[in-house]
């Protein structure tokens, strides 16, 4: 179809020029990024009510102005190496992942980064920082460090979560 073709072309052009805004955060020493449009808000730690019998990476639920939101410990979800000391002042990133509002605990939130979309590269074959490849959307060189863009849709994939929950339940 001609229109589809032209739409593609427009998208191509836009992509070349477009800057992507990312919210940067860290877990341990790794730098991560998430599209700013997904971020609903960032809160300092809130009282978390644990949910028994849930997978261990689910920290519990919080009350966000009357809505009950599950909170996932991103470090555990991604299977990253354990941190020696638990940081006292962790942050909770509240993301809207296709309508599912979920909180993610991260060590710290750094800043908003502007990145030209074309500089984002597909994830390398080698596993990064002990992080399973499938959760990575892409990587991006930000000078000193590599920034890992996470695929939160993947992270929140229900089948996987359910599977995990049944494993952890046993």
């Amino acid at each position, binding site marked *: 179809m001609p229109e589809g073709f032209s739409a593609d072309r427009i998208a191509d052009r836009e992509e070349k020029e477009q800057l992507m805004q990312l919210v940067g955060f860290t877990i341990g020493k790794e730098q991560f990024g998430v599209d700013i449009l997904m971020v609903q808000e960032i809160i300092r730690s809130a*009282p978390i*009510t*644990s*949910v*028994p*019998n*849930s*997978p261990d990476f*689910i920290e519990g*639920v*919080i*009350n966000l102005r*009357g*809505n*009950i939101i*599950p909170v996932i410990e991103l470090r555990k979800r991604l299977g990253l190496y354990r941190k020696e000391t638990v940081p006292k002042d962790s942050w909770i990133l509240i993301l809207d992942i296709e309508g*599912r509002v*979920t909180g993610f605990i991260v060590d710290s939130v750094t800043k908003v980064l502007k990145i030209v979309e074309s500089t984002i590269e597909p994830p390398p074959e080698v596993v990064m920082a002990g992080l399973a490849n499938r959760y990575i959307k892409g990587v991006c060189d930000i000078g000193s460090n590599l920034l890992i863009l996470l695929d939160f849709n993947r992270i929140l994939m*229900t089948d996987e*979560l*359910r599977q995990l*929950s*049944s494993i952890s*339940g046993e």
Partner: protein
Amino acid sequence: MIDTSMLPDFIIEAQEHLEEMEGSLLRLEQQKGQESREIMDEIFRSAHTIKGAAQFVGIDRIAELSHKLENLLDLIRKGEQSLTPVVTDLLIEGKDRITKLVEELERNQSEESEVEDLLIRIRQIVEGDAPEETEEHDEDAQPEMEEVKPGLLAEESMNEEHDEELYNIFLQQLKENIPFLYAQTVELSLSVDKQDVLYRCSDSIKSLKSSANYMGYEKLAKHYSDWQSEISKAIEQLSSGKMPNLAFMQDYIDEIIRSFPQAMEGYSDKEDDARPEAGTLLQEETVSESDFDHFFDQPDDEDEDEEPAAPVEPLATDLDAALQSIFSEDEEGEEVDLSPASTVEEELVAPLPSPPAFRSSQERKLPHLEVEMDGEEHDQELASIFLKKLQTDIHFIEGQVNQLATATDKKEILQGCQDAIARLASSANYMEYQSLSAFCGAWRLALQEDIARLDLGEGAADASKTLQRFTQEILKVYPQVITHQEPEEAQVAETEKLDTKKLDEPLATTLLSLPETEEKTSETAAAEEQSELTAEPTSSLADEAKEEKADDHELFSRLSSALEQNMSQTGTASPDDHVDSVIEQIMDKSEEQKLTLPSPIPLASVADEEEEVMSGAAALLSVPLLPHHKEEEKKAKPLATPLGLADKKQAKTKEQQAPKAADKEEQQTESAASTPITEPKPKKAEVVPEAVLKKLELPVQETLDKEEDSEEAEDKQTAGVSRKPTARSSIRVDADKIDYLMNQVGELVVSRAYFAQLVNEMRSLQQQLLEDSRLTKSELKPLHEFAFRLSEAGIHLGRVSNELQEGVMKIRMLPIEQLFKRYPRLIRDLTHRTDKDVRLITQGEETELDKMVIESMSDPLIHIIRNAVDHGIETTEERKRVGKPAQGTLILEAYHESDHIVLEISDDGKGIDPQRIRMKAVEKGLFTSDEMERMSDLEVLRIIMEPGFSTAEKTTETSGRGVGMDVVKKNIERLNGMIEISSKPGQGTKMRIKIPLTMAIIQALMVRVGREKFTIPLTTVEETLRIFRHEISVIEGVDVIHIRDITMPIFRLAKIYNIDRPQEGEDKMFVVIVSTGTQEVGLVVDELLGQEEVVIKPLADYLRTESGFGGATILGDGGISLILDIPELVKLAADDQADRQEERAKSYQRKRRKRIVNAEQTQPQTIH
């Protein structure tokens, strides 16, 4: 194509009407052949409304099916078709199909199910040929229909039954569609909207294709497919602005005619048959059965040579030639007249078609069109609607022409006219008045030309001339447009079809010649003028306000029609002057009567749909008018005298009385004095303004609703049902808005709880100060007072939020009638082909509950009712044998019980035999016979809700798979409800369902385990106990307690959820006895915190599955408490225990460790 913006409205409306229709159909069936006019009218009305709306939105299949149903209904109503069970079944099936289509529309915005099969059957019945055969066919087709609803599949299975009958049907379809395609092909060359024509052809071919498939004619089907693809190519070309070569159409048709000469032969046969009997009943039937036939019938009655356009050429003879000539664009003589359509389209600069040509063509068409009208007698209602439409549009155009001279934005006006003409063309198309439709097409093009020239600064005068010229032509052909107005409208409003028919005919003749109108006394004239008052000021006002609104079009046309009437009455007087004087008169009058003019907006809608608002108005006018009105109508009905002065006089009388709400006696004498007439329209016109006066404060949007409602109200009224008019009692609101409101109220409830908590904290602080800080009471007095005031404020807040919560909840509440009224149909279907007779009694229909709850109760009730009818109630014979009344009774009852609704479904059937269940349960391996022995009868009854349990010896069509009651239980549990079964063998069964009023807020018991707080829905809580450790005993590794001779398993919440607790070795503990409906278990908790009303908040699905949590709620302090899903939790706990037992058995064998039972008892963690 479907207008998606209108679709949601259509769906809602259609569903309402379908529901109504179903109720009426069932009542009709119950009357067992006694045809009830009233019910027929109701069904007819529903079908008609659905048809109208479907056409408007562009939903072809529904429109066609409902149209055919309507035809069938009409025949029944006229007594030409008896109401056999076959017909009733067909009607019900038709209704079902429409329902299905509507559902499909709701899901996918497209119609998927075929309607052909039903159309064929309807046609067979309408035709009336070989009724026994039809019946047989019906019997055959029915089961298949039920099996595979989308007709296409059914067709394939019928392949083997290739017989004479099928072939006939196939031929029939061919005979219909081929001529139609022929006609369309011809039209193609003329039509402006070629795409539309092509789409129509494509549809027609599609149905042909399906019939070919159905017959297994592969080649033919392929031929059709090719054809279709050619058409879609052509459509594509058209949409990209190219002019495709459309000659292929003819080739394809020729090909088919070559292979199936019967298609055309049969056609001419029929024509021959029909002709000698033209005008008789038979003719009518032929016509109704196929509008195309009718269409092709016409030319023979006409002067063929004079016909300007091919659409009306006799098909059987030399259509080919005509076609050829048109395709080659060989415009000679007659054809020039209408061909400009295509010429103009190709070259926009082409000159205007010459006016004389049009005039002459129209004049020549005049008799032809008349005949078209008469031929449609069978569908008079349709014709009258068409006329009404024609008249509105024509008057609108006239009005616009008058405005044109003075208006600044001429283009806008002309465009309005153009739209009106387009509307006219489409309605003409629908009526199959081809010549008129072509005429409109040409007109529109001419106007387009004018508009184009308008841009260049000229042509305004031309435009108005063009408009006038065309209008005049139309008026010549349809003189009824001027004079028929009132009868037409009355006809539409009046459902007493035959009456109106009688009325209509004399009217047509008398009014056409207009002798009586001239004789009208000044009084009647005044009355008439008065009726114009309603239209006049409003329209002018509203028109100024918003010119482009579609309502105004209608409205303005009212005005102009009023003018038109005046003109016809007074003959010579110049219309403008006359109107002015009328307005003056009216103004005076209204002042006299202390009538202030109502605000334009409500009036606008009033004038817009006078007859519809009538009943609403009557309702608004409150008591005195309503009975009077009815009385009059009653009197009026039998009379069918020609419309005359009396009627007008009556209108006037009424008009004078209405504002005073005059006393009844006077009215009666007056209305008796004047000759009453079935002519509601003038009355309405009068009644309305007063009503509106009283309701001036109505906001605009509500007025729209009012229209809708009053339509309904009118329906009820005309049906003679003396129900209280429910005008404006409901508004439609997006469910999301209510949900949002509900959420906010939920928040308020939470903050109220927080308030209460604060007050408590304050009290303890006070106490602390008193005791620890040794302050005196007088020193603490200000604090004390403050605490008191705070608690007062809290109480107030509580009261308000309680009421608010109740109010918001009530918004969602609907009477359970909504649910109950679905079941008569179910009973009918269940008993239809069995030897059972069941009467359904519903009680407490007015009981209200949450819409969500209603929806989720629908399926469980279906299962229960099915079970009752299928297993419970015996056959008529059997009932007689055991001395019960032959007719079984099923009672559906709803009532309130504190915060819950109780639904009871009881039947007087044979009941459930516990012994049989015991047997079956053991047989199916659900329980051991030992277990069975120990169960009480009541427990045994609950087994029927176990998945996979069924007592039925074999699986029947409706039940026996052992899923039903399991589904019921699941659904009810989801609602936090309970179900109880009681049964007395031989006497009947009763199911008692207890469900909360709403799903959003529940009463709950708060408990604490460790540091966690959990919420247990109160519906599941049976009782709470405090027990000592020594009361717990262990049976087969399961902790149990004995209360009142019952041994009950207990589970420790802390163990299930692995919660650390400091004091494990406590001697006393709290047990909450919860019930899952089939089982009671105890849950050990640390503390009971009390009862609270909580708002259920959803939990993410991955937290909900297999966790034993149904949701969460926010506590007064902002904390979160998880709500336990008791049935799920009990299942989890039981599984857990089973696993543990297994594990323990293993480890016991392996290591032979001793004291494992005790260890597990005291230190559960060691096992894990």
